[in-house]
């Protein structure tokens, strides 16, 4: 199978929707060692004082506060929504989060609880987290979630089909889900922990953006490893190349495993130095997280009081 090698200015000029993925892979290959070295550099940045406070608050405003358990109850979702609107009782200066992410059957409850706020409701749909069901059901689920009031849909791709080389099918499914979303924003989850290599990550990123994804997202949070810095860097670079190619800005959402403020700040450093400030807002960047919010709060209180904080004094979500 011929393999497309990336060179500046030689991207196909045909209509993006008509790219035949079954014929060739157009994505550049990834230099694993180079990626790891680059990531190590981001982690060496020292972020202190005002910059740290700025980063902590920014990270909070980028959070998709998430609860995706089979045991979720309306009470749990309402509590999470309250936290989304006002993360900490004593800290009114802390911004609200970007969205609350729930299963489709909780959308209505979340929507009502968030009434009057600017916080979106995101629903995971398409047979989350495996996606192992017929396309019809997946599309129906998407339409239903949107009709319940979801502003954003987080879909999963068919990893099995992708790994089997049925790229056109994966492409077509994303197009179909995007259509089913209507006005809702579409985030496409790759589950990079199951894709085996960074080459694959880069390829699926290009494919999904061509297919109409508004956001690309690393993981469901149900599979380990979830989001990692190298994977996210590869996706950010794909977003940058897509922007150079089409002029369209696609969003990025690392999810799963980002539990501490320290790691979140590393992600923000990487974002700033890869895509720049244009992307540093909730329209183009999100953290999919549940435990992160509390650690951000803990660090904010620590910065304010000078005392190291305990989880004993923050709400249990």
């Amino acid at each position, binding site marked *: 199978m011929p393999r497309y090698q990336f060179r500046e200015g030689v991207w196909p000029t045909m209509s993006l929707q008509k790219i035949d993925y079954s014929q060739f892979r157009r994505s550049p290959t990834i230099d694993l060692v180079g990626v790891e070295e680059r990531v190590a550099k981001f982690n060496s940045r020292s972020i202190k004082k005002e910059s740290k406070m700025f980063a902590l608050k920014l990270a909070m405003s980028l959070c998709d506060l998430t609860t995706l358990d089979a045991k979720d109850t309306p009470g749990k979702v309402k509590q999470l929504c309250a936290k989304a609107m006002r993360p900490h009782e004593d800290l009114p200066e802390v911004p609200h989060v970007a969205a609350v992410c729930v299963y489709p059957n909780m959308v209505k409850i979340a929507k009502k609880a968030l009434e009057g706020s600017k916080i979106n409701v995101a629903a995971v749909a398409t047979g989350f987290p495996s996606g192992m069901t017929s396309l019809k059901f997946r599309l129906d689920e998407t339409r239903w979630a949107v009709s319940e009031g979801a502003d954003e849909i987080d879909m999963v791709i068919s990893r099995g089909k992708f790994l089997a080389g049925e790229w056109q099918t994966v492409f077509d499914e994303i197009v179909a889900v995007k259509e089913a979303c209507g006005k809702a924003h579409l985030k496409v989850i790759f589950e990079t922990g199951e894709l085996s290599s960074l080459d694959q990550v880069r390829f699926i990123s290009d494919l999904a953006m061509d297919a109409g994804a508004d956001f690309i997202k690393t993981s469901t949070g149900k599979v380990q490893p979830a989001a990692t810095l190298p994977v996210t860097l590869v996706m950010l670079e794909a977003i940058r190349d897509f922007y150079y190619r089409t002029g369209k800005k696609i969003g990025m959402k690392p999810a799963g495993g980002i539990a501490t403020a320290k790691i979140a700040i590393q992600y923000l450093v990487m974002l700033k130095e890869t895509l720049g400030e244009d992307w540093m807002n909730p329209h183009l960047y999100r953290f999919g997280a549940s435990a992160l919010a509390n650690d951000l709060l803990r660090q904010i209180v620590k910065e304010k009081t*000078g*005392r*190291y*904080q*305990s*989880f*004993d*004094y923050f709400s249990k979500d």
Partner: protein
Amino acid sequence: MSRQENSDRLGVLKTYKLYIDGKFPRTESGRYFKLKAADGKILANVCQGSRKDVRDAVTAARTAFAKWSRQTAYLRGQILYRVAEMLEGRRLQFTEELVEQGVTRDKAIAEVSESIDTLVYYAGWSDKYPQIFSAVNPVASSHFNFSMPEPTGVVCVLAPELPSLLGLVRAIAPVIIGGNTAVVLVSSKQPLSGITFGEVLHTSDLPSGVVNLVSGFRDELIKTMASHMDVNAILLCAEKDRVGDSVVVQEQAIENLKRVSVWKDIEANPYRIMEFQEIKTTWHPVGA
């Protein structure tokens, strides 16, 4: 060819590091202070632990607490006894180290022995102090009402300067035998014994993070330890020339109502276990 000690051989010097979460990391700050013998010879470069080292140690102690506090009294006793066994086996090393740091040989030998005996003493108390300090309380209803001690949580220990080894053992044994986990600032005058004691703990089946040892200076770390919101109690071994310490500790401990213990001596007795215990009272209905 048989191995022979070559007089030209370069000795392998030990790097004295911290003991945090079952590992021996260098201080994250990269700072060191020189420890000198009485004759001015440099004994070692000792890590000057930082606030972040304390923070990391508290995180490790908090994680370890969940399991350690639920272990049976029997097992905790066995493990503390194992620590005594390991210390016994290293008697010579600890004696030499104390002598190097300026303790006379006789006193050093006695200090190591007493340290071992202290561990055995508290190991024996592990399943006895709950019996002695628990109570069945008289109540005017059909209930069994009983009170019993439970570990308080993460305990910061400011170990005595001297005696450096015995003082350390006397301070941490009652803390951990009661199911707490400890973050310890070892003696700054004789830090080597405390740091080497980490090697004994490490080979004694004591789970990672139950005891964390940091070397450094009180002036720098006392406030961090006393103000940390995730620390539930603090043990200050008072020094005669540092009267301000107890004020700092008590002021900083107010915010999260830490238990504060100030010790003017290092006696061993079961009440010292109880200083780091909470009392839980349970009502249990009985028929008729």
